[in-house]
């Protein structure tokens, strides 16, 4: 249980991730020899501060969901380190992990497949108490009913089954379950993307209220940049298994520094027909390369309009600028007097080079 030295300014992060890697092996043939690996997550460094919401955004295949499953320890990391409240939880076994599970909970994307159709709502929301052997004050039933009321459901629906609820209500059940054990950190993987617009807003507001009320810390993973802007305090942008930019919400949306972030933001359709004519859109060429053999150097160089020789050769480390903005790019945008040489220092450990 070593407390690591922090290069960041905020003391005592709730969760610290350094050099986190997850490679899924690809096996072939009779002997099931490993012939390659899907480099889903390839060296992440970030921390989550108590009480904040960290948004993680990226396109499909960028490794954001894998990241969520790694920090909740639903997947075993290949290498790297995950610390929760200063405790190294990277390779804890199932039994050793169990007490930690009270503090780290997850909200899933699909409200249909994440609830057991044969269990009543009472059984689903009460399951965490039974698994952890906790008897809340007043008994499990009373506590479950309190939780149902907390997330805006009727406590009398205790005995109903998931199919009797709409998508938005099911998502509320999932949230009630996640909150049952009063967790410190809630990881939500696309919590609203399966919901209709009007329902989506209800759930976003609910997450907001619960954070204020219970002092929760969120890691919210989503592909929708508008939702992320609304809910997050800080935002990490991922591309092909790496964080390319991490900054405060305002800084990220108003002065994005990584060309990928700029392109991503410019691609989002804005519900404002008058802006259609005057907006400038950066169209990226082609598709995201395969994470089985990611490009050398900067992984974005194959699609980047600013790419030069150095981008093909050298991988830019994620560096923190004086403003607290972290970016991994050789030629950042919006960087007057903030050329890569004038950085405040590397984020933490030096980012490792990609294997060629």
């Amino acid at each position, binding site marked *: 249980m070593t407390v690591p030295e922090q290069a960041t300014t905020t003391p005592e992060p709730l969760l610290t991730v350094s050099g986190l890697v997850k490679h899924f092996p690809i096996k072939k043939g009779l002997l099931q020899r490993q012939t390659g690996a899907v480099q889903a997550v390839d060296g992440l460094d970030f921390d989550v501060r108590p009480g904040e919401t960290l948004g993680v955004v990226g*396109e*499909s295949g960028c490794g954001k969901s894998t990241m969520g499953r790694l920090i909740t320890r639903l997947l075993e990391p290949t290498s790297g380190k995950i610390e929760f409240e200063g405790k190294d939880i990277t390779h804890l076994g199932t039994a050793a992990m169990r007490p930690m599970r009270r503090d780290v909970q997850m909200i899933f994307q699909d409200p249909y497949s994440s609830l057991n159709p044969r269990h009543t709502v009472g059984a689903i929301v009460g399951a965490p108490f039974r698994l952890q052997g906790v008897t809340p004050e007043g008994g499990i039933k009373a506590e479950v009913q309190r939780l149902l009321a907390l997330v805006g459901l009727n406590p009398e629906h205790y005995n109903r089954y998931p199919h009797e609820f*709409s998508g*938005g*209500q099911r998502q509320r059940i999932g949230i009630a379950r996640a909150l049952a054990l009063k967790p410190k950190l809630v990881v939500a993987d696309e919590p609203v993307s399966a919901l*209709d*617009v*009007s*329902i*989506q*807003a*209800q759930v*976003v*507001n609910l997450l*907001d209220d619960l954070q204020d009320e219970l002092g929760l810390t969120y890691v919210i993973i989503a*592909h*929708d*940049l*508008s*939702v992320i*802007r*609304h*809910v997050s305090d800080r935002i990490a942008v991922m591309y092909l298994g790496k964080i390319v930019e991490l900054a405060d*919400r*305002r800084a990220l*949306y*108003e002065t994005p520094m990584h060309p990928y972030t700029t*392109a*991503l*933001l*410019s*691609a*989002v*359709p*804005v*519900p*404002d*027909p*008058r*802006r*259609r004519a005057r907006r400038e*859109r950066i*169209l*990226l060429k*082609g*598709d*995201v390369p395969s994470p089985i053999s990611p490009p050398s150097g900067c992984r974005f160089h194959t699609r980047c309009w600013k790419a030069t020789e150095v981008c093909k050769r050298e991988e830019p480390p994620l560096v923190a600028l004086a403003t607290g903005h972290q970016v991994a790019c050789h030629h950042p945008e919006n960087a007057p007097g903030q050329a890569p040489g004038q950085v405040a220092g590397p984020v933490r450990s030096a980012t490792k080079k990609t294997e060629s």
Partner: protein
Amino acid sequence: MTDIDKPATAAVGEVAEAGSPAPTAFLEVRDLRVHFPTDDGLVKSVDGLSFRLEKGKTLGIVGESGSGKSVTSLGIMGLHTAGQYGRRKARISGEIWLNGQELLGADPDEVRKLRGREMSMIFQDPLSALHPYYTIGRQITEAYQVHHEVAKEVARKRAVEMLDRVGIPQPDKRVDSYPHEFSGGMRQRAMIAMSLVNNPELLIADEPTTALDVTVQAQILDLIRDLQKEFGSAVIVITHDLGVVAELADDLLVMYAGRCVERGPAEKVFYEPQHPYTWGLLGSMPRIDRDQTDRLIPVKGSPPSLINVPSGCAFHPRCPYADVPEGGITRTERPELRGVPGGGGHFSACHMAQEDRTRIWTEEIAPKL
């Protein structure tokens, strides 16, 4: 085609009532109703929808799941009655006029000749809309050869040409690929190539970018816009994303529970929306273009069942202003689609008086958005 009891009020707006002579507009839908008999009762997916669309214009149909937007598009394409679904067969009534020809009463063989040639469709999920067993090229040439008596080589050349046009690299090689060898964005491009191979005059895009990543979505939206300019077709874009329609649409139609609640030029609907449901949609959406610290303003409750659509205005149980009109009229009487004064083709189906609507929008809603 089955006749359905028509209620006394028909929401028409500037579109002529059913039974009137052929319209001059390129596409005119009059009082379209699509009902599905089920064991639980009659599902009124579309219940009296009217609109018109000219060539070279784009109509955006917006609504939540179950509001009837996709059923409308399948209805126009004549796909509800095309298959052998036995008792699940849809009951359709109303009129659909395409280029001076009425489609609902027409011979199915006639409609088949139009489908794919005069009107075609882009579906949401390209992986399930493309046949996994055949190459992309074969599927495109098939669509072409159904309507043109040409040799295989000619059709293949045409397929390569179309793949090139939609921006697929090395089209002469990729024409022989299978759908699984394409990425999501490429598949959607291939499907667009397939739907445009016969130069259709009406293109219906049903959630064309919902399954795609945002950078790819931007590419596809640009492609649809460019192709429309080039071919001058009429386009209907069906989506739940107000951002997508703001990018593409000239006119907007907002659907709720199988009916149109608001229709008009996109500018009007976005900047002077008249229906509380449209306000709700605008208030529910987190915005990427501004730093919003306030809470979102969601619509309370959830969309109604289409078997038991609420009486009166279908939106009244969720409407915060349901009691503004006096005498509980919102609960008893279904509001008609009426022109907004000075609106220039802007229609709304709401019982509230014009002054109330303007006041609520400018004083209560707009400042919070």
